[in-house]
């Protein structure tokens, strides 16, 4: 049976892993390559490295960090942050990434998704969507933010996910800005809304704090994968223990691995 994936995310700033609360207040959490390997050994199904300041400060992704991390990592490895062109993506693939995530640049020009997919295959292009709840009087909807959550785009998250799929995205990495770093649980409504609208895998992100949050997002949110950062590398929840708990709760997991 195809299992649900647990993805360990490393938010990287200036070559170090950091973790913020609601996209700010950054704290140092270690060396990316070391943490990636530790997560792999602990049972992570995939590792994501996000260069969180790349777009904002107009820096290219830290290719040497990617290279160093990829060298000994024999599970899928995704890299994002600052990928603005096919050439940026190519450099990240050359450095050892299996998949890239595109965000702000794809919002500005959705054809970037198509161009990367045509060269590297859809499975290699993940569209990252940072969504924020918006109350519009009639009810709740989800707006899309760009540039690390700093800029509104006027787009609707569900509509953008559908468009991204049509452009050739292989997966959606869906982050709830409202929940990011709070450890209060994933936004299951947001996740389910996107999962229902597209036919490609959806990775839920933002808000992981305890095993029951993962159970909720897989069961109620119908996510294909769930991503977390701080609870793994700050050692709050060991991945192996989490996977065992999920397995007991009836969620298919790669465990033991």
């Amino acid at each position, binding site marked *: *049976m195809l299992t649900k994936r647990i993805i360990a995310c490393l938010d990287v700033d200036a070559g170090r892993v950091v973790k913020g609360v609601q996209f700010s207040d950054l704290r140092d959490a270690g060396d990316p390559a070391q943490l990636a390997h530790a997560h792999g050994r602990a049972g992570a199904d995939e590792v994501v490295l996000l260069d969180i300041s790349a777009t904002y400060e107009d820096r290219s992704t830290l290719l040497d960090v990617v290279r160093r991390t990829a060298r000994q990592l*024999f599970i899928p490895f995704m890299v994002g942050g600052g990928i603005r062109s096919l050439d940026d993506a190519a450099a990240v*693939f050359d450095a050892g990434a299996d998949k890239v995530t595109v965000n702000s640049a794809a919002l500005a020009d959705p054809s970037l998704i198509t161009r990367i997919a045509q060269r*590297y295959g859809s*499975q290699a292009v993940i569209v990252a969507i940072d969504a924020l709840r918006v109350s519009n009087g009639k009810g709740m909807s989800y707006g899309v933010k760009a540039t690390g959550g700093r800029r509104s785009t006027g787009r609707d998250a569900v509509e953008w996910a559908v468009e991204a799929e049509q452009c050739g995205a292989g997966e959606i990495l869906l982050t709830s800005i409202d929940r990011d770093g709070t450890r209060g649980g994933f936004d299951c409504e947001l996740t389910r809304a996107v999962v229902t609208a597209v036919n490609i895998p959806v990775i839920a992100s933002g808000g992981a704090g305890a095993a029951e949050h993962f159970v909720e997002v897989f069961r109620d949110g119908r996510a294909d994968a769930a991503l977390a950062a701080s609870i793994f590398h700050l050692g709050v929840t060991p991945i192996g223990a989490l996977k065992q708990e999920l397995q007991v709760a009836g969620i298919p997991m790669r465990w033991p*691995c």
Partner: protein
Amino acid sequence: MIAIVDYRAGNLASVRKAFDHLGREAVITADPEVIAQATKVVLPGVGNFEATTALSGALREAVVRAIEREVPLLGICLGMQWMFESSEEAPKLRGLGLFPGECEKFPAEVKSPHVGWNQLQVRGASRLLCGLAPDSFVYFTHSYRAPVVEATVGNCEYGGTFSAAVERGNLFGVQFHPEKSGEAGLQLLRNFCEL
């Protein structure tokens, strides 16, 4: 020396990295003369069957000659699909036809691509899968799948049963990515190196 055939279809570096890790010399090459010297040949690849267009002419011939020399050949993902006759994804192209049948799309009731860790159900004796735990988890990412044939040594279930691993003599193919499948994948590549 292991020749990793370069036909511009991704994941070449990850495959070489895995062989490096196992202490085996592997080169990424599109040179028929290098392939002619190889003691093993790997056909990697992800993406569209259309990409196998690059596997025509001299490159195709070099691979066919290697097969005639009975050099162990391992097709990975798209590389394995190319070892079948054809694929719905690019119906005009012809595969190597080493295994019978056409690769087809997943049925509409399951999400496509099939992405993630799924179980490899080993059936029958296999030199390639030797030492892998039964129902080992391996990493897949593909939108088309190969049929179960006589040479199928590993099944996978996703919207029905398909060939996850095929083997006949020195011909081997895997739909999943051993270079991305953790310890199980490294064990498989070690087995291939030691053939």
